[in-house]
């Protein structure tokens, strides 16, 4: 029978396992399934109906709480500070799950991992940026920018490529 982790199991420190799992599976197996199952479980929880709520003892910085309250009252960014917090948390978790799924995919299929040039082209395409018609220009820009900024993003490459395309005054 497969080991199905509960949320508690997913919080378990690395290297510790439920007794049943140790009895029935090898450590390699646990390590292999742990992350994908966590991703799936977080994803399922994010898809759950939002009608059920819980009180939480989560502590947040007082200044952040006050800033959120002010943003709700004066800027109308959300119906309540709680709604604002929940929406921000959901957005972050959705991004985390998506990136974890992609990272897991890249581990299994290294050839699927896009280069910075590929990503710059994809970003230009999604935005309808005319640079999408100049893939070689974007790839050169990506090669140039990583020399000085190894952590550059696709959007950084687009900005760099656009700046280079502006004729000197």
């Amino acid at each position, binding site marked *: 029978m497969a080991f199905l982790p509960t949320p508690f199991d997913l919080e378990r420190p690395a290297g510790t396992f439920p007794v049943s799992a140790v009895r029935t599976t090898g450590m390699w197996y646990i390590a292999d399934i742990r992350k*994908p199952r966590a991703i*799936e479980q977080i*994803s399922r929880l994010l898809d759950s109906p939002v009608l059920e709520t819980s009180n939480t003892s989560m502590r947040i910085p007082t200044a952040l709480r006050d800033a959120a309250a002010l943003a709700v009252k004066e800027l109308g960014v959300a119906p309540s500070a709680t709604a604002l917090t929940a929406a921000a948390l959901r957005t972050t978790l959705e991004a985390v799950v*998506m990136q974890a799924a*992609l990272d897991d995919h890249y581990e299994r*299929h290294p*050839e699927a991992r896009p280069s910075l040039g590929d990503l710059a*082209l994809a970003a230009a*395409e*999604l935005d309808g940026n005319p640079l999408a018609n100049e893939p070689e220009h974007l790839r050169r820009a990506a090669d140039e920018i990583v020399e000085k900024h190894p952590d550059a993003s696709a959007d950084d490459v687009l900005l760099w490529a656009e700046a280079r395309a502006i004729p000197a005054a």
Partner: protein
Amino acid sequence: MSQLVLLDNEAVQALGDPAHPKHHRVVSHAQIVASRKRRAAEIELAVPTTVRVEAGWDRTSSSRAFANRLRITDMPLDAASANVGAIIRKRTGVSVPDAHLGAVIQSAPADRITVVTSDPDDMRLVAGDATITIVTI
């Protein structure tokens, strides 16, 4: 500014199959969406449910695990979408999934709509007066 990125049949198939010749490209688009979401951009990947039927994407199938984990939103064919889709199909003669894509395009509240597709002509046809960005794969 909010952005909706819609996938057509071939984009869905390419995403789900690492051996598909266009897999790498569609993964690049998914990666951009993920990176922008991480920076709190209002951007969403979505697929009309009839496109999912056409592409054979069953969310309960383990063979589609990668696509299932990417938080791609289902756009259901509800009564309102069915009405708009029927009008589009009658006017253009496109397939049901493409007409559904058109209905989503014409009714989505997003500020920018991008369609990742292998059939740009049909997407222009079904978009009607809506302004869309087309990514041809």
